[in-house]
């Protein structure tokens, strides 16, 4: 809990990507994703090029392919939706192994799987190389409104409070002979959730009052700003990936 509130996806290593200031990485990741989404879906080769870019950054960040693939399962519901599309899509049909499939649906499925996966990979790379604290510092430097930064800071801080409180309450229930494992014990869970919220709030309120009494004014503490703001050189280095992606997207748009 005290370890800088690193989240589950953060990979504690050192790499050129880890060392880049967070605001640069966020901007690059967003720009890359927009370039991917803007690419016409018929340009199959372009998505191969994006995957190569992702692989290059992953190698630089020392993120293994296995980790990336395992975490990509997050988009599974949409892959299932994509699989359904060729069957329920309208328009022209083709015969694939004796099954009538919608052409538009097939392209649509490809579109969702390719763009979705690339987007997930990009955000996983950001998550793997940026701690949550750095993420907030990055958003702050990108001139995100203060009130949003404040909510985000408290949210990440209170997630730990909430999880800790839930663990304590679960232990308390088990030690009093409850066995909260089955669906029919949902009632106990539902009754506990209000109490959990309240307990977490009162703990959180104490944290907040302690912060106020130690001089918190709503701004991020300066010690958080560990690394200095990004230099022009760092912006240029990080810009290479989205610029290459944008070039691919533009070429694909012209060719199709």
């Amino acid at each position, binding site marked *: 809990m005290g370890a800088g509130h690193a989240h589950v*996806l953060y990979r504690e290593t050192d790499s050129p990507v880890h060392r880049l200031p967070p605001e640069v990485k*966020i901007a690059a990741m967003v720009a890359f994703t927009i370039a991917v*989404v*803007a690419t016409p879906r018929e340009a199959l080769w372009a998505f191969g090029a994006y995957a190569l870019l992702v692989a290059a950054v992953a190698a630089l960040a020392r993120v293994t392919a296995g980790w990336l693939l395992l*975490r990509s*399962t*997050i*988009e*599974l*519901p*949409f*892959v*299932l*939706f994509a699989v*359904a*599309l060729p069957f*329920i*899509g*309208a*328009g022209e049909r083709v015969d694939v192994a004796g099954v009538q499939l919608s052409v*538009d649906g097939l392209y649509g499925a490809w*579109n*969702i*799987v390719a763009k979705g996966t*690339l*987007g*997930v*990979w*990009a*955000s*996983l790379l*950001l*998550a793997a190389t*940026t701690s949550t604290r750095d*993420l907030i510092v990055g958003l702050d430097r990108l001139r995100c409104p203060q*009130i*949003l930064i*404040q*909510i*985000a800071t*408290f*949210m*990440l*801080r*209170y*997630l730990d*409070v*909430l999880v800790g409180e839930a663990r304590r309450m679960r232990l308390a229930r088990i030690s009093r002979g409850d066995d909260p494992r089955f669906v029919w014990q949902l009632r106990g869970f*539902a*009754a506990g*959730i*209000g109490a959990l*919220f*309240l307990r*977490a*709030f009162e703990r*959180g*309120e104490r944290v*907040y009052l302690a912060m*106020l009494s130690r001089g918190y004014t709503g701004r991020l503490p300066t010690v958080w700003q560990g690394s200095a703001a990004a230099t022009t050189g760092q912006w240029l280095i990080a810009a290479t990936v989205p610029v290459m992606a944008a070039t691919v997207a533009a070429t694909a748009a012209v060719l199709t």
Partner: protein
Amino acid sequence: METLAMHISNGIINGPVAAVFAVIALAAMAYCVRRGRQDLDDRLAPMAGLVAAFIFAVQMLNFPIFTAGVSGHLLGGALAAMLVGPWVGALCVAVVLVVQALVFGDGGVAMLGLNITNMAVIGLGVAYLLIALLLRVLPRTPAGLAITAFVSALVSVVVAAMGFVLQYQLGGTTDLGENLAGLAGTMAVSHLFIGIGEGLITATTVVTVAKVRPDLVYALRALKPAAPATVPTVGGVR
């Protein structure tokens, strides 16, 4: 930790429609930032953080419903509207969505405008309108509060799901033809069930909080302007 995405991911809705909704979401959030600043006081700041954390945790619980890849999760919109008001509440939901998109890949970054419009703008808006209406109509009892929370949560979830159907009709990347009605039906039915779950969780949470700390429920503040002034407790509040 097994987490699954439900927010709209990249490539489902085409670029122009996503861009239009990004502008809508940005404008709505800018307005909420202006209004929310006046609301955010010493009591609301930690509450907003906790509500956001709660929504964040609750949205991790995903229900894959039916086989066609339609899944859903709790949205937390009504809870946020109840506890921190519509403006800060919308910001809480938006913060959750932004963090999820940036570091969890839940919901495409390019689709953030669509997701924020559905869950933070439509979901919160519907929930708050219903709360404001029902709290005036229903008796001011725990039961009345519970019904308000339940109904507003249920309706806001279904309406937010319909927001997705509308966006799909405007700019879905695959033309579903008459199957769009099927998508709408599946979304409506599945979110009806989610809405019931969400309604129950929202109602129990809000009623518990209202019983112990009524001062924390934003929706009740406007109703009781003549509440007795809180006596400052010597030695700190609990």
